[in-house]
């Protein structure tokens, strides 16, 4: 459902092309505040014109990473490079980056217009051009009627839009967006997301965005970096992150997932079998893994890839579990079934509600079978 939106994007994949040059590059960057390590020996490459999202729990170092690009923090170790140039010692006002601050940081003594024009005035842009650009930005964020207001006369969402407009006004080479849309309502947020994508493509800018909203990251980003404790856990396209997480942490952080612990019982080229004695399941999949027979692994499968049925599969067939419906969540478009296994573990299955009336609906305390295809899930070694 979510990942599909990202794949609408063109065949833009400089990260797969060994010839492409990095645009923003973190080289072994560590940032310490006194004893606290906020960013831990992190290396990351972002390409020109990329829309790159940082995703991670609160306090994992996302803002710190951005502030190092903007120039408000210097790395304790390592280097940040922009277009091949080490940024060390370049003050923020000389960097071709603009940042939208998490706290907005609007100038309280200036009107919306003046806030947006601030950066352009600083560059001594001709008056007419400033007026034009301010107008364009006001239209973009739909704040035309509020141009003369001061920030304290705006709602939270309106302030956020002013901050966005101000950071965009100079059309910087790199735009750093720290949770740019958090305070907007769903509809405006979705609209603005598409405006952002549109703008980024039209202007050919590089965007680095921090967000707590994974759906947002999936929608806007070309690639996502999932972070934890100052480290990057995985960098990949939204579809890869969703379908091929490299760890339990990523699988669990992005979307919902069922994790089943087991041991590798057979491994051949292109096929693996896992036995999970806790649940009594035998899992077979068309995937080679880098784990040996006997290793402990986790099998991860998304709820929408689990089929639920009242009929038992053929006896002895793999990729099947039986249990009892414990709870049902009806969300309109889909229903979520929480099925309790004999072992006490719960597996979740999502079913699209394809017709309004179902002949034999599955209901509470029904004995059901959960099945999935051989390429429905992934095996995670860590």
């Amino acid at each position, binding site marked *: 459902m979510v990942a599909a939106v990202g794949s609408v994007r063109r065949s833009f994949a400089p990260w797969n092309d060994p010839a492409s040059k990095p645009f923003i590059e973190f080289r072994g960057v560590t940032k310490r505040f006194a004893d606290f390590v906020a960013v831990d020996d992190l290396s990351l490459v972002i390409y020109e014109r990329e829309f790159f999202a940082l995703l991670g729990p609160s306090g994992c170092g996302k803002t710190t990473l951005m502030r190092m690009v903007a120039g408000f923090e210097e790395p304790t170790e390592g280097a940040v490079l922009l277009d091949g140039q080490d940024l060390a010692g370049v*003050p923020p*006002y000389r960097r071709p980056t603009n940042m939208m*601050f998490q706290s907005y940081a609007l100038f309280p003594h200036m009107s919306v217009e003046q806030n947006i024009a601030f950066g352009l005035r600083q560059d001594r842009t001709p008056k007419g051009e400033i007026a034009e650009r301010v107008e364009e930005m006001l239209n973009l964020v739909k704040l035309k009627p509020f141009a003369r207001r001061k920030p304290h*006369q705006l709602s939270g969402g309106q302030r956020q839009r002013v901050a966005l407009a101000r950071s965009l006004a100079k059309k910087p080479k790199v735009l750093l967006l720290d949770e740019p849309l958090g305070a907007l309502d769903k509809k405006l947020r979705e609209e603005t997301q598409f405006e952002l994508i549109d703008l980024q493509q039209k202007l050919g800018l590089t965007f680095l965005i921090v967000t707590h909203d994974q759906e947002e990251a999936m929608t806007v980003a070309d690639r996502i970096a999932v972070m934890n404790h100052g480290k990057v856990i995985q960098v990949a396209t939204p579809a890869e992150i969703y379908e091929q997480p490299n760890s339990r942490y990523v699988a669990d952080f992005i979307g919902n997932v069922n994790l089943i612990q087991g041991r590798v019982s057979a491994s051949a080229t292109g096929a693996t079998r896992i036995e999970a004695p806790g649940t009594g399941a035998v899992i077979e999949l068309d995937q080679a893994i880098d784990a040996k027979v006997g290793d402990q692994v986790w099998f991860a499968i998304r709820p929408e890839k689990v089929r639920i049925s009242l009929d038992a599969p053929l006896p002895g067939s793999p990729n099947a579990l039986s249990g009892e419906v414990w709870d049902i969540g009806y969300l309109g478009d889909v229903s979520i079934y929480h099925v309790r296994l004999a072992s006490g573990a719960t597996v979740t299955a999502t079913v699209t509600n394809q017709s309004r009336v179902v002949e034999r609906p599955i209901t509470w305390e029904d004995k059901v079978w959960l099945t999935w295809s051989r390429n429905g899930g992934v095996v995670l070694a860590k």
Partner: protein
Amino acid sequence: MTAAADTAPPAARQRSHPLAWLVVAIPYAWLAFFFLVPFFIVLKISFSTSAIAQPPYTPIIDIFGGLGSIFSALREFTTDNYVFLTEDSLYWRSYLQSLEIAAISTFLTLLVGYPMAYGMARASRAWRPMLVMLVILPFWTSFLIRVYAWIGILKKEGLLNQFLLWIGVIHEPLTILNTNLAVYIGIVYSYLPFMVLPLYAALEKMDDTLLEAAQDLGCPPIQAFWKVTFPLSLPGVVAGCFLVFIPVTGEFVIPDLLGGTDTVMIGKTLWNEFFSNRDWPLASAVAVVLLLLLVVPIVVFQNQERKQQERES
């Protein structure tokens, strides 16, 4: 989002406690009693005529004598004292000089006080209470004693001259005491806390990310100071300037002790009228004019401010 939602007024103000007015009323009652009552007494005396008597003026209103005696007293009121103020150049010259000295010394105090307040606001959080304490510390000694101490520093054979002679910057002692320069030094020294504290209050609550935002948009730190920090500290600047300018205009002790014969500030003139000439009615007129001179511009200024704010919203 609909336009209606966008233009909706901010949530209604919290309702105040039913007894909240009492909290406001007490200081106002205090002010009314200890400011307005003496003011009306002075105002009344300013319309009287000087007399060799106790008290040294007529008429004396006998508030127990009924309406008749009040009316007969009112008939004796005169504006002669005010007319006299305009006739003798001594008075308007001392008004002018007072305003000039007050304006210049307010500016000097701002010049010295702003960097101090800025430094305090930028100091680490742990240091700030200590620094505020240091600014207030001089108040623990009598104002008079501190001004006397400056005589010891500024006089011909005082500490400052000795020091300058010793390091060889000068070869003759400088005459500082009993000049306007000494008055400025005394005023800046004495009134500095009144400037620093409101400035500090304004600067301390400023959000550092605003300066980062300014820099991010291409503004070097010094420009960011003038475009962001200074405008945002203006309320503190205005408050500090009022707190210095108003009392300095009527200042008596500093020009009397440190100033020369050509330092004629209105406070000194007032003192002379009251105590040397014992002309209470004229002295009262001087005081009333001084008050008007200060109050009228302030009221106009605040009205202007309010109108501007209304225009903005």
